[in-house]
């Protein structure tokens, strides 16, 4: 059964090796897949073109947050009710996306967030856990929400969120920004356990510790200037 009222948004940056496989896997379960190629330097674009996914091409590299926003804006033009954000490196499971949609269909919530710490993340590195725990504390502090995982790319939301979400922080700081938006716009949210399947490929592409400083600085600066 292919689900026809959900748009799956996949930001893509230099994922030529894996992106096609990931898209084809998603297309088996979801009719609408939107790939935002964020100015990749490899042939991600060609790989996406070979699939049945919609391709939106950023003319320049603008960062993952910007790619998500573009994907959401494109998805608004499609006849869908729900939206899922999904990572291109294949670390998310479709079962988890499905259970998020099921949760949304009950009609009581606006946005569902994935948490690997409620669920599991086999093969996660200890250093990654340490950074994430710090990031979680930081994001909970800046947004005022109480979550167990704040930097998970798997999310699902309804029309209301898709129409009102405006992500402005282009890079990884968007994860904290989304939480701030949730708090500010009073979206009804819930975390559900998800499994992140780390592979050597996805591990190699992870965020570095030092980048946490950039993210923290930008998030705080934004809070003051707003």
């Amino acid at each position, binding site marked *: 059964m292919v689900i026809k009222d959900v748009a799956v948004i996949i930001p893509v940056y230099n994922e030529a090796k894996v992106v096609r496989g990931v898209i084809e896997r998603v297309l088996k379960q979801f009719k609408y897949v939107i790939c*935002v190629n964020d100015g990749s330097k490899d042939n991600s674009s060609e790989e996406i073109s070979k699939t049945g996914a*919609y*391709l*939106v*091409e*950023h*003319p*320049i590299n*603008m960062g993952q947050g*910007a790619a998500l*926003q*573009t994907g959401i*804006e*494109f998805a608004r*033009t499609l006849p869908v009710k729900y939206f899922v954000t999904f990572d291109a490196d294949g670390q998310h499971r479709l079962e988890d996306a499905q259970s998020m949609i099921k949760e949304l269909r009950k009609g009581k919530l606006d946005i569902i967030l994935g948490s690997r710490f409620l669920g599991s993340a086999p093969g996660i590195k200890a250093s990654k856990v340490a950074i994430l725990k710090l990031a979680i504390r930081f994001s909970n502090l800046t947004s005022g929400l109480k979550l167990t995982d704040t930097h998970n790319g798997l999310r699902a939301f309804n029309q209301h969120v898709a129409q009102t979400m405006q992500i*402005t922080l*282009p890079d990884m700081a968007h994860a904290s920004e989304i939480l701030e938006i949730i708090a500010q716009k009073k979206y009804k949210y819930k975390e559900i356990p998800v499994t992140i399947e780390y592979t050597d490929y996805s591990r190699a592409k992870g965020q570095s510790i030092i980048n946490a400083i950039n993210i923290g600085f*930008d998030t705080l*600066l934004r809070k*003051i*200037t707003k």
Partner: protein
Amino acid sequence: MIILIQILVILVALAIIGAVLVGKQSHSARAWKKIALSLLAVAMVVAVLFPDTTNKIANMVGVGRGADLLLYVLTLSFIGYALNNYLHQQQQRDQLNRLARKLALIDAINRNQKKK
């Protein structure tokens, strides 16, 4: 007396950061930045023509040498400049991103219609 310069430097530092952060890019904020820049240039000329003045001012606020005072002023100006620039750059990046997004969306929607 030493406390006077410490209070001054901290107050000015906070004022710069506050002005840069809260000021946005309103007309008056931009005008004040120009006034501050001009004053800095005038102060520089005065300091070169009358080297004693920096020493005198330094002594008034409790700094030993004029050179130290200059360094404080320079550091504060630099922090203000750097912050201002960073915010301005982010603002421009945001504008550029919106423009690029619009292009990307128009292009994608056109391609879609051709497909159909």
